[in-house]
């Protein structure tokens, strides 16, 4: 889908934009993320980290969604 290197969402720095290209998560977790709008092809931006570094707050489809680094590690992305 993209020529960039595949990374996972948990490793991104603050302010980084990216696009979802796939998942490495249990099916039910994947489904929940999809339903919250984090679908393959969705673009997002890392907006902030919680004071203790986890969870991550991202902006996707115009709203803020927080998820733990542990789960974010299963979201494959390319940087934009």
């Amino acid at each position, binding site marked *: 889908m993209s020529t960039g290197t595949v990374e996972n969402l948990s490793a991104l720095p603050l302010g980084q934009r990216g696009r979802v290209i796939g998942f490495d998560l249990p*099916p039910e977790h994947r*489904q929940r*993320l999809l339903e919250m709008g984090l679908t393959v092809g969705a673009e997002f931006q890392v907006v902030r980290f*919680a*004071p203790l570094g986890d969870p991550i707050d991202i902006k996707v489809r115009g*709203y803020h*969604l*927080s998820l733990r680094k542990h789960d974010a590690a299963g979201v494959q992305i390319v940087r934009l």
Partner: protein
Amino acid sequence: MSAPSQAGLPSATRGAVRHVAIAGNPNCGKTTIFNALTGMRQKVGNYPGVTVEKKTGHFFGSHGEAMELLDLPGSYSLQVRSPDEAVARDVLLSRQPDTPRPDMVICVVDASNLERNLYLVAQMLELQIPVVVALNMVDVAEKNGVVIDLMALREKLGVPVIPMVATKGVGFIELRQAVSRSPLPPPPVCAQMPIVLEREVMALAKALHVAPEVARGEALLLLTLHDQALEEVAHHERPVIDATLEAQKRLRLAGIDPLSAPVEARYEWIGQICAAVTHKGGLFDAQSVSDRLDGWLTHRVWGWVAFLGIMALMFIFIFSVAQYPMDWIDSGTAAVSDWVKDMLPDSDLRGLLTDGVIAGVGGVVIFLPQILVLFFFLGILEDTGYMARAAFIMDRLMSKVGLHGKSFIPMLSSLACAIPGIMATRTIENRKDRLVTILVAPLMSCSARLPVYAIMIAVLLPVASSLQKAGIMLSMYLVGLFAAFGMAWVFKKTLLRGETPMLLLEMPPYRMPSFASVILRMWERGLIFLKRAGTVILALSIILWALATFPKPADPEATPAEAIAQSFAGRMGHAIEPLIKPLGYDWKIGIGLIGSFAAREVFVSTMSIVYNVESDDENTEPLRDTMSAERHADGTPVFTPLVCLGLMVFYVLAMQCISTVAVVRRETNSWRWPLFQIAYMTSLAWLGAFIVYQGGRLLGWQ
């Protein structure tokens, strides 16, 4: 082939009242619209068999037609993950007993968050149910630079779309008109599913024994369930489940993931709609006020400062503001009790009324101000959007014991009173996490423990400085805190073991709270507490009164202390003496433990009766002196420092609160959990007191 069901009936045969349901994502303003439409004509109950609240209200259409409005629990999707979401789905699929399938659904959509909000609309449309979209917060959307082409949106969705600003009362006339219009043709099926998937859906729909109009929606929902959830489906026969599993297998072979394909198809469709109907700037617009606020409120340093400040403020308010009405209630109860004493001659009936009924009811009502203030604050935190930030900030710490950030607020609330805390666990989707939070919440030191701490500190250190007192008090709070988190960790590792659930937290933009709805919700919750807990407490207070009163002493001249000593409670005190002896307690303390079983703060008044002193919460000196002077038969003091400390630790850890038991019973919908909770907490309390007393003695202390 399909069994007749209520859903199959045209609405006319169900009487004149039209059933309308209101649904929407969390934070979309659904409650505001519900309240504005129904005013005070609301009824809060429960769905049968589950703990999900069922809120209904009445309103009138634009021509005066009677309508019943059902508030469906807020959810992001009809894919079920929590009991709340299950109810929403079951009602729409006419699976919920005692609730007819709605004739129409008002789907509230946050215009400033259109894409994700339309997801639920997409699922509703698939259910072939008439939908009216209430496009709320169009003002916020416009402020964010998003203009929505209403005509285009109506055309794309095929249903009425009413622009609204619910907090300012804009759009209600049009909404009523739209709801009054009849009959509404079911909208066409929307998102285009892959052809292979569509074929499987149709095939499965034919095999279902449900009304034809819900068959497709039901089949699609079944096909998108993951294996474990499918195994748990109870309302379909085994062949249906097997057919679903087979269909899923075929789809996977065809390269289609049944769990994600429908979701992606819906978002694909939504994406096309949004592109056609919205005009806005870039995807990542400039920092909003909310974003800038979050820069401070979730900052690495300032975030903590603000967090601690807000929590401290909340508690200062709870303890200062609530104190006045609590004092009024206290003196009011005393006045009523005195009045009854004046009106009636000394008799068992008078005792039953004053010491059983009035004392029991007073003991419940006294905490109402605190509970209401707490609900008020929780409502504000929720409405402003700070609740999500608190969970965001605390999540990392909570994850250490296997819980997530959403468990934090219930545990914090329990520092004032476990009841609002336990009722606040409803926002936790994961059932096991919610149970763990409910189980440990009463370990947090609530305000009812304060009188017990106060008297025991007074006995322990009669001339303590306030700093020493505060130090001991604080250590008791810490004991409770560590016990709560420790037990949460234990439960997550053993009894309620489960993989760490996924945390998906929406951080809604900050908003001004609506005081009217905060007050209304506070009132609803307060009433629920009074009704559910009140009846149980009343019954138990009467039982405890009887235990402390009967049998009557043979000698009519007996003092109250002698009377209670030979009552059932006194005998029970003697009976449990071997059990509590290792803690350093005698049978008199045993009476105190039994007497305060229903409400821990009763300990002080029970001990006053036991030691036959005139004493109450405000004036504990006589009781303190008597307790300090109390000696065992061999002349050694009863209340040694170790006994005092051990007793405090016992009260930190013991359940001793029947209101909480009643609320846990209601929230878990069974007696199993509250009984388990009493058992484990009492054991923990015994163990704690044992360690303090025996451990202290081993170290050579008194």
